[in-house]
């Protein structure tokens, strides 16, 4: 197996694990972490597109690589907004959850 195919399959596996964590973790920050795993897996898949496009004296296609660099920074910016929203939501509702049922219950949904 070529190194690029191996890296691509690694990316595919990362997308799988990230998806699993994104759906199952109740904690919103853990969901965000899992979503970042999916993102880096997608970048890796795109990275092997760059590696395979090696022609004209290049060992890689610089266009997808430049797009991945841009993508990593934009993904970070989106994560920062998500963190700000999660923190604000938790401060307002006193619950670290994305379950809307908890917020609408009386007493803020405290199970005492």
């Amino acid at each position, binding site marked *: 197996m070529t190194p690029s195919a191996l890296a691509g399959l690694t990316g595919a596996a*990362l997308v799988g694990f990230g998806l699993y964590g994104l759906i199952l973790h109740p904690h919103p920050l853990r969901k965000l972490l899992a979503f970042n795993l999916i993102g880096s897996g997608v970048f890796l898949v795109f990275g092997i597109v760059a590696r395979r496009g090696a022609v004209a004296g290049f060992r890689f296609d610089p266009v997808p*690589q430049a797009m991945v660099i841009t993508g990593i*920074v934009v993904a970070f*910016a989106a994560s920062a907004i998500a963190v700000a929203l999660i923190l604000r939501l938790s401060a307002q509702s006193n619950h670290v959850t994305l379950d809307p049922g908890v917020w609408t219950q009386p007493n803020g949904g405290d199970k005492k």
Partner: protein
Amino acid sequence: MSLLLPSLDLLLASLVICVAVYTIAAQDLFAAVIGYVAYGLLLAFVWIRLYAPDVALTEAAVGGGVTGVLLITAGKRLGALNVSQEAQPGPVLKLLTGVLATLVASALGAVILMLPDPPPSLAPEAAAAADGAGAGLGNPITAVLMSYRSLDTMLEKIVLILAVIGVWSVGADEAWGRAPAPLRQQKAYAPMVFLAQMLAPVGALIAIHIFWTGANAPGGAFQGGALLAAMWMVTMMARLMEPPRVDARWLRLALVAGPAVFLISGLAGEVVAGSFFAYPPGLAKPIILFIEAFMVLSIAAALPMLVAGPPSERSDP
């Protein structure tokens, strides 16, 4: 030798996957974030194996480091709220999700093994751009970012500003104009202060070097700016500096400097060189370095502001 590299690749790939599984499976948020930082650094090695040192630098600095600081800070702030946790999902849901995730990963893997041959490539166009308008740039990635796809890069800088505005705007009304909460609530440990004092000057120097060398070698404005941002965050975590007020004029000027200079240069290209974002021949490299210098400034200002979060009521003296 012929067997060494493939087995190293296999070892690296399994290590990356193991650490990824750990970040998903870890009980504790803090442990998961530490796992994610380690994962980002390991992933950087995979990028090096794909002949992508520029991406490796960005992944290590932004994907691992700065995202790690963001999540650790967020976890600390959530922990300070002392809030309730909800129950874990049941086994049926776990099984179904596992099946779904396996299906998605397998489908993606199958697509990767069936990619078209010969693969499509934009490398010749990028090479032409690097030889033409971006003349004198030895690093094809920088040539693509600053010349061939320069509009994308400028818009991406604007996305960073929009993200900063988005983060600031979720703050409470009363807090508007004040500084974000400190990155650390308690007094910093002495070793942390020592580390910041030792590391920050060296790191800032390395950041400027990475930016400067990016024209011809791996590196560039993104990587240098991210490193500079990390150094600012280290000094803020050691409480040697506090986050600035969000209405500080110098901060806002630093945030918009990169995209503004980039856009003005692009518009000037219309007049001087005949098309939007064209650079006059012979002057391309100095102009690109000039734009990149302001981009480094904007990235170094934007990333710590994204981590520091919205203006806070508690931070004012």
